[in-house]
């Protein structure tokens, strides 16, 4: 519940993790926490696994210094 209030926990299984590309400053914290995120040549995240382990995902979302990770309802 607290995770949801902070925006860190996955709201439902229809949601996936996305990066707000404008907000992202390429600090790379998410890639340190989540094995499903790789950094590109310039240090910006490439998400391979958009539905990662819930605890790790929560940590990555709340620890992002740019608050650029968020859950968005899947469109596909």
């Amino acid at each position, binding site marked *: 519940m607290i995770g949801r209030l902070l925006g860190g926990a996955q709201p439902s299984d229809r949601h996936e993790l996305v990066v707000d*590309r*404008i907000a992202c400053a390429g600090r790379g914290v998410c890639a340190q926490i989540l094995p499903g995120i790789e950094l590109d040549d310039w240090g*910006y995240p490439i998400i391979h696994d958009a539905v990662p382990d819930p605890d790790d995902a929560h940590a990555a979302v709340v620890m992002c210094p740019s608050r650029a990770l968020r859950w968005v309802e899947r469109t596909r």
Partner: protein
Amino acid sequence: MTALTELVREAGLAGRGGGSFSTATKLELAQQHRADLIINACDGEVDARKDGWVIEHHLMDVLGAAAQLTTGRVRIAAQRDSVTIARLQAACVDTLAVPRHYVSSEESSLVRLAHGGPARPLTRYRPITAGGRSETGRRLRPTLVLNAETVWRIQQIRDHGAAWFRSHGTEREPGPRLVTMVRGVARPGVYEAAAGMTFGHLGALAGGFTAPVGAFWLGGLGGGFVAAADAPVARWSRDGLRRWGIGPGAGTIDVIRAGDDPWLTVTAALDYAAGESAGQCGPCMFGIPALFDDVAALRRSPDEEAVERLYRRLGQLPGRGACHYPDGIAGFVRSALRTFGEVPQAVPARRHRHLSVIGPQS
């Protein structure tokens, strides 16, 4: 759904700005949200002229359709200090003056600009037609953004009916469509054309090709190339160009003459593209200049490491910006590689020419 939306759906009109999205679907969403309307006449794609042409010749039709599309505010967006904006201001039309940058005329850039923000794309999680929020959390009114040619086509459909519209073009891509013939033809300019035409037919509209053609460059930075050898079997439509991984895009057709070095055109375009990123998203602001550097390095000397790096980076751009600009540039470079050789060719020794200047036109 209103009768007009129904009619537009029956006609099968798709947006003429390059995205080819169903106009009726957009209109329906706009009605649900009582959206304002911005008509895009920026001609933001490299060498595009057609929307300025629509404003010059069919402004009354555009305004007539606009009045049917919304009860909200209607503005026409055009590039700052352009002939088009001067023409609109002289006609006392509510205008939106847009900076002369490639991504400034992108849909969400225009909406942000209309709300007093910078003309740069916005991160969206739903269509901007339904409204959104600026990066600072400010509410942005639902806004329908349609290309000027698209709005003109809506008026034509009102005047002549869906059956008339469908009597042009192809079954899947119906209706007349404007083409901008850029260079290499007797009379460069904007012409009425339609999906499914051959390159020979398109060239004939503009008085024929003035020199043997090496390749066609379609759709500017969001497009790509078709080699002249392939042109006889290609058709000017999404279906007819799918094999080459491109489409008609914003409707420009340029000619690279036989015997000219195509990589001169590609590198000049990439050089321009690198400076046109809005500088908001990392993969775009670093990725596009990096592509230019990789191609330029390969032009100086062959280097296997650089080839590998170029291909890896091409894979790292698509889908990784707030708008589709990096996707378009990656597609453009891929198309060049497919058409002109898997590796950018090094410049032959002692050959020196000035790069042609590429940029938005007035």
